[in-house]
C-alpha cells in the first residue's frame, strides 16, 4: 500500500473530488483520474487475480494494453461490463467497480491453490490431462476449470442500453491522437479535405499527456483542429478493425464516462468509416521484462509509472527501483525523480549506457547498477524488495523497494497496419517489427512507424538468471498466465511455428491479444529454437484491436428494431380480431383466429369446415408478385417455367412450376395473363425476392435480347382470398364491371374491374379446392375491401382463416408447399407433377437436367399420401419412415413425413411424405418409429379430397 498522490502536478482537477467504490470499499479520486490512477493514489496495489493460477496481480500499464487490472463495472441493472481495463476506465461520480476471478475476496482467494499446484498446469495441460475419459470432460473437468479459471463473468440480465451506428466518409482518417497524429491531421486539414481524427483516450494527446513540456503545444493544436469545419475529432473512440479499401470500424463510447444519472441516449456508436487515406499514429507499447517474480503487484512498466506521475500526479511507490535494458527507463526514472518520486536505484543489464543519462542519474542521487539484472522479487501481494545480480548470475544483493519498474524497450503498435496487410520488417535497434515499405493510401507516422526517439537499448528475451527457467515464475503473458518455461516446453515438445506455439501455450490469446507478450514470447521461442526471430514467424494481427461490446456491433438492430417485421395492410384487422400469428420469412401472418377460448386444433377445424361448407376469407397479401411486361413476356415465361405459356389467352391463368437449372423445384405460383404483353405472376411468400433475382439473372445475362421487363408488385397489391361454396355470393354485390357467372368467369381466369369502388384484378383461383377468388386491390384499399367483404359475408357466416387452415385445406387437395413438401432435391416427377411440364417445349430452365442419370434412375423419393391405420394418430412432420420396424439400428430410412394434419373435413389425419419409390408402394403399409411406439401408415395418392376437382368448377 505504497502508491500516493503527489503534492502537485498532473492534469487532474484537484478541486473536484470524486467518490467511487472498488470491491465495495469507498475511495476518492479527482476529476481527470482513471480508475487505475485513483486506486494507485489511494495505495491500492492488488487489482486482480490471474487467469489460471489466481496469483495476486497489480497494475502493469497505463493504457489499453493492461493485462492484469481488469475490473467489472456496474452502472445499474442490465448495465454490467466485465473485463474493462482499469487504466482505460475514466473516473466518474458513483463509479462501482469490482475485481474479478477471485473467491471469496480479492485479498483471500481460494483459487490461489492453483498457484501451488502450478506444476500440474503446464502448457497444453487441457489437451494432455483431460482427454480421458471423454465423458468426464463435459461433466467434470470443464465445469471445474471454468469455475476456477477465468476472467470476468458475463452479465446475465438483458442489456438495458441501446446503441447507435453510422457511416462516415473522409479524405483522411488519422488513428491516434498523439503528437504525430495531431500533426498529420493538421497537415491534412489544411489541404482542405475532410479529416477525421480518432483517439481512444479520455483526452486526446497520447504520449504528450504525460509530458508537461508539450501541454501548451497540445492545447493550441487541438484548438486549431477544433476550429476547422472540415475536421471531426472522435475522442473516446477505438478504431478496432481495418477492413478492405480503407474501411475502418471504430466504436465511440458516448456515456460510460458519465455518472449513470447523467447518461442519456445511446451508450456507444459504431463508426463505419471509408477514408481516402488512412494515417496510423498508434504509438508504441512498452515491453515488460521476463524474470522470476515479474508479476508481483508493484512490478510495472516504467512508462506507466511516468504517466501516473506526470498525467495523474500519482507516485507508484515511496521507494522505486527501475530495471532497464533501454534508455527510456533512465529517462522515465529521471522524470519521476524530478516529479518527487524517490528512485532507489536504476539497474541496467547493459555494461555501459549513455554517459549523459548516467551523469544525470548520479546527480539526482540515484544508485546505478550497470551490468546487473533483477533475479528475484520479494513479496506476494506487494513488492517489498528486489534481488539483483551482476549478469544475473553473480553475487546477489537485495534492494528494498515498494515498486519495481521495467523498461524492456518498445513495440510499435502495428496492429491496424498489419490488418491492412501492410508488410513488416524486423528492426534490431527496436527489437521489434516495424512497418516496411508503404502500401497504397495507408501510412504510419510517429512511434508506430519507428519514427520516435526513445533512445537506445538492447532487446532481450528473459533476463539472465542462475535459477533454471523451470524453477522461475517468470511471466510472458500475464493475462493468460503463460511463463517463459511454458514456451520452452512447447519447443521441447516439437512445436516450431510461432502460430503453433501460440496456440499450444495460449501466449497472446487473451483479451489483450498479447500486446505486452507477443514480442517477448517470440524472442524466447527464437532462443529455444536457436533460430533468428525473423525465421520463427509472427502471429497474425486480427480485429478487434481491443474488445468491443456486442451492442456496439449491432447498433440499432436490437429489440423492436432487431430486424424488420413485415406486416400486410390487413394485419391490423387480424390483430384486433384476435389472430394468433406466425412468422413466415420476415412476414408475420395470421395463423388462426381462435374464438371463445378455442385452442389451435378447435379453431382450425372450425375454419376448415367453414371453407368447405360455406365461405372463408384469408389474407394472401404476402404472396410474391411480379409484373412481367413487354412484347416477349410470354416467350420469357415459357423459358423460365416448366409449363407452356404462349398459348395462354389473355384473361386466363396457369399454375407455373419453376425449376433451378439442376432440375429441382424451386418455386411455384399462379400467373394470370392480363394482356398479350403483360402477366401478373405470383410466387411463394418466402421465394419472392429469390425468384425475381433468378429471373433478372436469366433475363440480363442469358436472354438480354428479349424485350421484357420485371417489376416487383408484391407490396402494391393487397390480396384477399375468398374461398368456399358461397364465395361468389359474398363478393357479387361488391364487384362492378365483371360478370361473375361460371361461364363468363371460369376457374383459372382473371378479370379487371372494381370492387367496393377500388380497382381490382380479380383472380378465380383456388388453393383450397373450393370455388374461390383472390381479390387483388391496391394496398391502400385492402383494409377497406377486407372489411366490406367481411360485412357482406356475414349472412353466409364468412369465417376469417389463417395460414394453418390454408395448409390443411391445400394438403387435403395434395397441393404442395415448396420448401415444405420439397427440399431442393425434388423434381417435378418426384412430386408427381409431370402434368405441369410442357413436354413439347424445346427448352426451359431445368429441362436438360430432367434427363440426368440420377434423375431418371429408379429409387428416387416420391411424394405420396400417407394414411395412418389409427385415424386419430397425427404423424409428426419430419418423422422418418421405414419398411421394417424390427430392423436393428441403423434402420433403412425410406423417407420422411413432409406435411401432416388433422383433417376436420375427413374426420381423420392425413399426411404427405417423400418415400423411396413411393408411388410403387401404393397400398403398402409402412412404419414410422417414434419414441415409445411405431405408427403404421398406408401409402396412397396425394389427393385426399375431391379428387375429381368437381368443387372447383361450380
Amino acid at each position, binding site marked *: 500500500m505504497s502508491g500516493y498522490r503527489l503534492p502537485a502536478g498532473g492534469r487532474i482537477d484537484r478541486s473536484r473530488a470524486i467518490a467511487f467504490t472498488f470491491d465495495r470499499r469507498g475511495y476518492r479520486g479527482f476529476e481527470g483520474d482513471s480508475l487505475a490512477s485513483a486506486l494507485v493514489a489511494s495505495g491500492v496495489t492488488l487489482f486482480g487475480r490471474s487467469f489460471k493460477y489466481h496469483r495476486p496481480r497489480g497494475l502493469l500499464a497505463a493504457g489499453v494494453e493492461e493485462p492484469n487490472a481488469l475490473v467489472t463495472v456496474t452502472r445499474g441493472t*442490465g448495465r454490467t461490463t466485465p473485463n474493462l481495463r482499469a487504466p482505460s476506465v475514466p473516473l466518474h461520480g458513483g463509479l462501482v467497480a469490482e475485481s474479478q476471478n477471485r473467491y471469496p475476496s480479492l485479498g483471500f482467494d481460494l483459487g490461489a491453490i492453483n498457484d501451488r499446484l502450478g506444476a500440474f498446469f503446464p502448457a497444453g495441460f487441457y489437451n494432455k490431462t483431460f482427454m480421458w475419459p471423454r465423458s468426464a470432460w463435459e461433466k467434470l473437468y470443464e465445469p471445474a476449470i471454468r469455475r476456477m479459471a477465468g476472467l470476468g463473468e458475463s452479465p*446475465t*440480465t*438483458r442489456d438495458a442500453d*441501446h446503441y*447507435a*451506428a*453510422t*457511416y*462516415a*466518409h473522409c479524405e483522411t482518417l488519422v488513428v491516434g491522437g498523439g503528437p504525430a497524429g495531431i500533426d498529420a491531421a493538421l497537415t491534412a486539414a489544411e489541404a482542405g479535405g*475532410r479529416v477525421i481524427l480518432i483517439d481512444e483516450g479520455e483526452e486526446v494527446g497520447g504520449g504528450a499527456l504525460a509530458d508537461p513540456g508539450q501541454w501548451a503545444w497540445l492545447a493550441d493544436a487541438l484548438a486549431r483542429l477544433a476550429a476547422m469545419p472540415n475536421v471531426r475529432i472522435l475522442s473516446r473512440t477505438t478504431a478496432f478493425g481495418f477492413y478492405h479499401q480503407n474501411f475502418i470500424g471504430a466504436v465511440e463510447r458516448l456515456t460510460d464516462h458519465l455518472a449513470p444519472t447523467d447518461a442519456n*441516449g*445511446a451508450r456507444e*456508436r459504431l463508426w*463505419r468509416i*471509408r477514408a481516402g487515406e488512412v494515417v496510423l499514429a498508434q504509438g508504441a507499447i512498452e515491453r515488460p521484462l521476463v524474470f522470476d517474480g515479474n508479476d508481483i503487484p508493484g512490478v510495472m512498466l516504467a512508462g506507466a509509472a511516468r504517466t501516473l506521475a506526470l498525467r495523474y500526479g500519482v507516485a507508484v511507490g515511496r521507494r522505486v527501483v527501475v530495471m532497464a535494458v533501454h534508455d527510456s527507463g533512465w529517462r522515465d526514472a529521471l522524470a519521476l525523480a524530478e516529479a518527487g518520486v524517490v528512485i532507489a536505484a536504476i539497474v541496467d543489464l547493459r555494461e555501459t549506457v549513455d554517459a549523459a543519462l548516467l551523469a544525470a542519474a548520479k546527480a539526482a542521487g540515484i544508485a546505478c547498477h550497470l551490468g546487473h539484472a533483477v533475479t528475484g522479487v520479494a513479496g506476494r501481494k506487494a513488492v517489498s524488495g528486489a534481488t539483483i545480480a551482476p549478469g544475473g548470475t553473480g553475487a546477489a544483493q537485495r534492494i528494498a523497494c515498494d515498486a519495481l519498474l521495467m523498461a524492456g524497450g518498445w513495440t510499435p503498435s502495428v496492429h491496424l497496419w498489419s490488418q491492412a496487410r501492410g508488410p513488416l520488417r524486423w528492426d534490431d535497434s527496436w527489437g521489434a517489427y516495424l512497418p516496411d515499405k508503404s502500401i497504397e493510401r495507408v501510412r504510419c507516422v510517429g512511434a508506430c512507424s519507428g519514427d520516435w526517439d526513445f533512445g537506445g537499448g538492447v532487446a532481450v528475451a528473459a533476463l539472465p538468471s542462475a535459477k533454471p527457467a523451470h524453477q522461475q515464475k517468470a511471466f510472458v503473458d500475464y493475462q493468460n498466465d503463460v511463463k517463459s518455461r511454458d514456451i520452452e516446453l512447447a519447443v521441447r515438445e516439437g512445436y516450431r511455428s510461432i502460430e503453433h506455439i501460440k496456440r499450444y501455450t495460449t501466449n497472446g490469446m487473451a483479451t489483450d491479444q498479447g500486446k505486452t507478450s507477443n514480442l517477448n514470447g517470440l524472442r524466447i521461442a527464437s532462443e529455444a529454437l536457436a533460430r533468428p526471430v525473423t525465421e520463427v514467424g509472427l502471429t497474425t494481427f486480427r480485429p478487434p484491436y481491443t474488445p468491443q461490446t456486442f451492442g456496439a456491433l449491432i*447498433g*440499432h*438492430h436490437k*429489440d*423492436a*428494431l*432487431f*430486424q*424488420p*417485421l*413485415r*406486416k*400486410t*395492410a390487413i394485419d391490423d384487422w387480424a*390483430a384486433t380480431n384476435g389472430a394468433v*400469428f406466425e412468422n413466415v420469412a*420476415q*412476414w*408475420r401472418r395470421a395463423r388462426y383466429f381462435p374464438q371463445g377460448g378455442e385452442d389451435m386444433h378447435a379453431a382450425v377445424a372450425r375454419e376448415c369446415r367453414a371453407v368447405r361448407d360455406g365461405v372463408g376469407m384469408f389474407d394472401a397479401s404476402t404472396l410474391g408478385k411480379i*409484373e412481367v*411486361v*413487354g*412484347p416477349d413476356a410470354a416467350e420469357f415465361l415459357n423459358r423460365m417455367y416448366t409449363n407452356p405459356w404462349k398459348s395462354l389467352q389473355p384473361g386466363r391463368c396457369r399454375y407455373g412450376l419453376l425449376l433451378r437449372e439442376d432440375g429441382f423445384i424451386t418455386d411455384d405460383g399462379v400467373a394470370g395473363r392480363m*394482356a*398479350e*404483353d*403483360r402477366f401478373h405472376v405470383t410466387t411463394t411468400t418466402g421465394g419472392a425476392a429469390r425468384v425475381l433475382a433468378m429471373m433478372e439473372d436469366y433475363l440480363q445475362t442469358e436472354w438480354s435480347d428479349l*424485350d*421484357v*421487363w420485371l*417489376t*416487383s*408488385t*408484391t*407490396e*402494391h*397489391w*393487397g390480396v384477399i382470398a375468398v374461398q368456399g361454396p358461397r364465395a361468389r355470393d359474398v363478393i357479387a354485390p361488391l364487384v362492378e364491371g365483371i360478370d361473375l357467372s361460371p361461364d363468363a368467369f371460369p376457374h383459372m381466369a382473371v378479370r379487371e374491374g372494381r370492387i367496393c369502388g377500388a380497382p381490382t384484378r380479380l383472380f378465380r383461383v383456388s388453393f383450397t379446392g373450393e370455388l374461390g377468388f383472390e381479390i387483388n386491390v*391496391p*394496398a*391502400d*384499399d385492402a383494409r377497406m375491401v377486407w372489411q366490406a367483404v367481411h360485412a357482406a359475408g356475414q349472412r353466409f357466416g364468412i369465417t376469417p382463416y389463417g395460414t394453418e387452415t390454408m395448409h390443411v385445406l391445400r394438403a387435403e387437395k395434395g397441393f404442395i408447399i415448396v420448401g415444405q413438401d420439397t427440399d431442393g432435391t425434388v423434381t417435378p416427377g418426384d412430386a408427381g407433377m409431370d402434368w405441369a411440364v410442357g413436354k413439347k417445349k424445346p427448352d426451359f430452365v431445368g429441362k436438360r437436367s430432367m434427363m440426368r442419370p440420377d434423375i431418371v434412375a429408379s429409387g428416387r423419393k416420391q411424394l405420396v399420401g400417407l394414411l395412418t391405420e389409427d385415424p386419430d394418430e397425427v404423424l409428426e412432420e419430419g418423422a422418418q419412415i421405414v419398411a421394417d420396424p424390427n430392423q436393428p439400428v441403423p434402420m433403412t430410412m425410406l423417407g420422411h413425413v413432409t406435411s401432416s394434419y388433422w383433417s376436420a373435413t375427413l374426420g381423420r389425419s392425413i399426411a404427405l411424405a417423400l418415400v423411396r419409390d413411393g408411388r410403387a408402394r401404393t397400398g403398402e403399409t409402412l412404419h414410422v418409429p417414434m419414441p415409445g411406439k411405431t405408427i403404421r401408415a398406408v401409402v396412397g395418392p396425394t389427393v385426399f379430397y375431391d379428387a375429381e376437382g368437381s368443387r372447383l368448377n361450380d
Partner: protein
Amino acid sequence: MIEITPLAVSAADLVVGTAPVSGHDVRLSLAPAAARYSLRARDPATLAGVIGRALPTRIGDMQGGIACLGPDEYYALLPAGERVPDGAGLPVSVVDVSDRALGFVVEGTGAAAAIATGCPLDLDRFAVGRATRTLFETVEIILLREDTTRFRIEVWRSFAPWLWHALVAAIADR
C-alpha cells in the same frame, strides 16, 4: 440463466408515425400520397413517347419527378391520381406501383447525417437532384436529394415501420 425482460415495444407494435418527428436539426415526416410508376425500356425515346414526358439521361439523375435508376429503369413520382399510358404492344414496361412504397421526407441541416446512420453512400458527394436505389442497413430504399437539406426516401410499405423507427432512433441519438 439469462433473464429476458419483456420489451417495452415489440416489433409487431411498430407503425409509421402519423405526426412528424423532430430533433434539433432534423425533421422526419411522411410524404403525401403519390402516384408511382416503374418505367422500363431499352430505348428511352420510345418510353418518353409513350408517357409523354422527358426522361433524365444519366443514371442517378432526376427530371420532372422521374428518376433514372438504371440503364433501362426509371421511377416516376407523380401527383396522386395521375395516370400514365401503359404503352401496350410497344417494347416498354409501365407498371403502376403507387401503393408499393411510402415516402418519407427527411429535412434539416442534420438530414444527411441522420440518413448516413444507416446508408453507406457518401452524401457529401450526392448532389441535389440525384436519386438512387440503395440501402438503409438491410432495407432497400430509393433515396432522392430534393435540396441541400431535404431528402426523400421511398421504402416498400412493409419495411416502412422499421425504417421510420430506425430513423427516429437515429434522430434521437444525434
